[in-house]
């Protein structure tokens, strides 16, 4: 299996965990120490450090997953990730990967809308359980978000 196929399988699983409502499994796709950020292209390009979501440990990922799943109040919705143009390069035991992402959001009584589009810049490592994320940076293109981002991208 080529590295690209391995990554595509991993991203398929990643999408299924979030879109399928199994957010409690989302932190399992990372290994400690880890970093997860959602950042606008605007802040990223200007070198501004603010994240829309920031998790600096598996514990923070778990806190965010629990909040999204049980604690925050938001309208029921369906999410559908589309992850394309997957590429990776393996060097010294780590894989630098990038991909485009798009999240479609469907709210009750509304047409499906594009919540956001952007690119992933990820670092992965090989573990006994398969590929796992050391770092995931989600850089979204349009600064203006329709509504709220209620789950991790």
């Amino acid at each position, binding site marked *: 299996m080529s590295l690209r196929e391995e990554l595509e399988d991993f991203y398929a699983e990643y999408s299924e965990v979030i879109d399928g409502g199994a957010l409690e499994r989302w932190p399992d796709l990372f290994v400690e120490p880890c970093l997860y950020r*959602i*950042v*606008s292209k*605007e*802040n990223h390009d*200007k070198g*501004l*450090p*603010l*994240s*829309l*979501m*920031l998790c*600096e*440990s*598996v*514990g*923070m990922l*778990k*806190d*965010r997953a629990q*909040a999204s799943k049980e*604690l*925050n*109040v*938001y*309208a029921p919705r369906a999410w559908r990730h589309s992850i394309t143009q997957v590429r990776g390069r393996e060097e010294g035991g780590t894989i630098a990967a990038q991909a485009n992402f798009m999240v479609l959001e469907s709210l009750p009584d509304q047409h499906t809308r594009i919540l956001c589009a952007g690119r992933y810049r990820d670092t992965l490592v090989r573990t006994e359980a398969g590929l796992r994320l050391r770092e995931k940076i989600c850089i979204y293109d349009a*600064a*203006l*978000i*329709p*509504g*709220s*981002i*209620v789950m991790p991208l």
Partner: protein
Amino acid sequence: MLVVRGEDGVIRGFLNRCAHRGVQLCQEASGHVRQFRCPYHQWTYDLDGRLMGMPFRHGVKGVGGMPAEFDFSQHGLMPIRIAVRRGGVFGSLNAQTPELEAYFGEKMLGFYDRVFDGRELRVLGYSRQRLRANWKLILENIKDTCHASLLHVFFVTFGLFRVDNPSKVRMDETGLHTALISERGRQELNEGTRQMHSFKQQLALQDPRLLDTVREFPGDATVIMHTFWPNLILQQQSNTLATRQIVARGPREFDLHWTFFGYATDDDEMTRRRLRQANLMGPGGLVSMDDGEIIERAQQSFAAAAADAAGINEMGGRDYADCDHMVTDVALRAFYRGYRNVMGL
């Protein structure tokens, strides 16, 4: 709007519109320029908004061109009144608006100056979101003390902003500007938290650094939420400092522009703390996402409501006075009284 710092260091504001055909001069959110040149017919303005030149003014090969009496001084950019106070920049299109200090009033100016205390500010980043709700609903939300103790699990459980903590509501005489002042409390079962369905006594963060807050302002308050009429929210929630500008887009939709900031004197640890606590706020905020969602939900039922439908804002009585607790709708009552005055309703 265009806001620009001139070579003389003075900040000026203009409508972002060429005097010729009305085309937007500038499309970047921020940056550096020496002049503004409209791409359409290349009319060019200096940073003071003066029209400096245009191609073909004197015609080409002896034909055409602008009339000889065309007066450049009459065709500059449309200025906006600008006021600057300690790093905050305010604009008004209305010549009748009082000076900023008088407009805020002494009491609210004191709250503003507590955060904008003269230290150089450092922008940490921006977030923007579009909410399908009336723009007043977010002002109302920030003036609504009770909801913070009920809707938001993170505020309620970890005591960040809760009605059983020592709290105050302070308003200016119009009732339009408000400061909600409170102190962080503990994760404990008491007469207040017992009534809050969102209080989770067993909830523990896996990584408690999210709430590793430090006291950085004088006095006992650990949170002050300010609303400045008509379109500014200023928050100091523990160590997150942010402004939210409300940009109304008609009666059923508005944009919220968040600017998170700290001070130039912050050390790395303080900056990390601010960035971490920013998880509570913004379009993906562990607290703020609840607000964005709930006001859209309110707007949905307004659309279906009878014309004479009304809300109830009677918690804490029917008066409009400052008070020393948060179990009250007083800031909402005062706000809508002020709104009716402004609108002549």
